[in-house]
């Protein structure tokens, strides 16, 4: 058996059900790695070791008395530090929330606890999931386990880094423009932004409510499916929550992608936001894997990236300003410089422009769904491999085209999986985008790809 901390959720769950692995043993293995190695990664801002040990003991006793109540029973996990956890500090890495201890769990935490999961602690994020990386906020930024001089990207930085480092097999993040997929890409793991409304954001500190998504990150797509099963579903306390039937995501992982039609937005990749030659080469190899599995690939035309980015960012900066207006007016010095730069001009956006952005968003979402009515999936790189962890001018948020934000505008499910490694040993990434509420096909494709390639066999060494 592999070292316990490196087991996937699926593997650990199987072993726990067979009584070959104790949740206590698994939790101790994770806590040991966090204690000895996280000083190099800074992926956790709060470790709930004693609580985790108690939850693991309770899980073990319950399982020994009968059987696991779910695939997550006795499985350790962690949460981005914007998910409310009753009695446990939730800071969003901000000096503004240094002493914030919620009285109630977020919806997602309630679901994971009900499934029998073991909470290890809270993960580093960019400040309020938007400004970063920053060195002038409550905690230092997380580092990339593949190369500690590199960034794990953001904003779900610590979540992705913790999974890649073998500190936890599962975590949740949030994604308003790519904040699950970017870190998943940089850290070589799987991360899913579900369809808008599929997973409740109740109790998740907001970035931009009209485009916020909560979702899972894990080593494999199969594990992402297990986590999604636990957290998906209607919540009347989230006004954006969708009341839809939740399929069996694990049952969808048939291993077959035969007959699927994959669209590639060639204009984006050749003209509007061309990735590096190495990233494009890795992408072409990934497409060939799908061709070899029986899928077909065709070029598609999407609206310009700049239109998606404009709609996304005008909505985001307006909503972010509204959320933080009181603090920006009264104590602007408590914000990190990166976040303050990225939201303060939102107070000067006119209502007319905000509404024009909503109109544009609707138009773009319709056009995106029209393309996805002709193909089953879209594929493109998620991002370039990780860059150095160093201060970034906050204006890059406004000036750099995004390969991920379009799918927040459209609301579509989008998964990032590892698609190999560059010459420095840093992960490449593949983004798989599906039709609204068709997570099953997205996950099926990601799982089939991972099982047809050797990338899940390699872990960061440090």
């Amino acid at each position: 058996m592999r070292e316990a901390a490196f087991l996937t959720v699926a593997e650990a769950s199987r072993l726990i059900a067979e009584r070959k692995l104790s949740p206590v043993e698994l939790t101790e293995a994770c806590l040991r790695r966090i204690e000895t190695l996280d000083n190099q990664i800074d992926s956790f801002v709060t470790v709930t070791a004693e609580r985790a040990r108690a939850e693991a003991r309770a899980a073990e006793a319950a399982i020994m008395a009968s059987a696991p109540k779910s695939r997550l029973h006795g499985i350790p996990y962690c949460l981005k530090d914007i998910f409310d956890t009753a009695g446990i500090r939730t800071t969003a890495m901000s000096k503004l929330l240094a002493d914030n201890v919620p009285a109630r769990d977020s919806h997602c935490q309630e679901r994971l606890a009900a499934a029998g999961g073991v909470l290890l602690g809270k993960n580093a994020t960019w400040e309020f999931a938007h400004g970063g990386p920053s060195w002038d906020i409550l905690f230092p930024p997380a580092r990339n386990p593949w190369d500690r001089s590199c960034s794990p990207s953001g904003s779900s930085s610590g979540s992705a880094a913790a999974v890649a480092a073998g500190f936890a097999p599962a975590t949740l993040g949030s994604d308003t423009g790519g904040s699950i997929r970017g870190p998943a890409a940089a850290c070589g793991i799987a991360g899913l932004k579900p369809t808008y409304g599929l997973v409740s954001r109740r109790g998740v500190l907001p970035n931009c409510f009209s485009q916020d998504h909560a979702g899972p990150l894990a080593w494999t797509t199969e594990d992402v499916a297990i986590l999604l099963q636990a957290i998906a579903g209607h919540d009347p306390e989230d006004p954006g929550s969708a009341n839809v039937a939740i399929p069996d995501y694990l049952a969808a992982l048939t291993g077959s992608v035969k007959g699927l039609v994959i669209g590639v937005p060639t204009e984006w990749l050749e003209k509007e936001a061309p990735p590096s030659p190495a990233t494009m080469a890795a992408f072409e190899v990934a497409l060939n894997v799908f061709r070899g599995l029986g899928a077909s690939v065709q070029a598609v035309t999407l609206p310009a990236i700049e239109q998606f980015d404009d709609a996304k960012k005008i909505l985001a900066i307006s909503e972010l300003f509204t959320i933080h207006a009181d603090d920006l007016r009264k104590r602007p010095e408590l914000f990190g410089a990166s976040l303050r730069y990225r939201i303060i001009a939102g107070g000067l956006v006119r209502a007319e422009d905000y509404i024009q952005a909503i109109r544009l968003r609707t138009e773009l979402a319709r056009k995106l769904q029209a393309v996805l009515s002709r193909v089953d999936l879209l594929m493109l790189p998620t991002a370039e491999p990780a860059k150095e962890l160093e201060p970034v001018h906050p204006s890059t948020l406004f000036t750099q085209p995004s390969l991920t934000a379009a799918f927040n505008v459209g609301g579509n499910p989008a998964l990032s999986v590892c698609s190999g490694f560059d010459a420095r040993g840093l992960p490449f990434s593949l983004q798989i985008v599906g039709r609204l509420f068709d997570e099953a096909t997205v996950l099926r494709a990601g799982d089939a790809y991972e099982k047809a390639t050797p990338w899940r066999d390699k872990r960061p060494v440090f």
Partner: protein
Amino acid sequence: MSQTPTDDDIVQLARQAGLDLPAEFMPELIEAYGHVRQMTARVRAARPRGDEPAHVFVAAAFRKDQR
């Protein structure tokens, strides 16, 4: 405001938004607003009077409050 606002214009706009910022933060507001103006200029388009998705209001979402 179609022409490029001066720094003083931006200070005035900020005050109208309730932002009486310390002087040290004004350069970042002025620079960031330059980026925002470029984006808002691009989304302004002539649209039909009925093209108003912001008016969408989903009454069903409030049904639980009636119970």
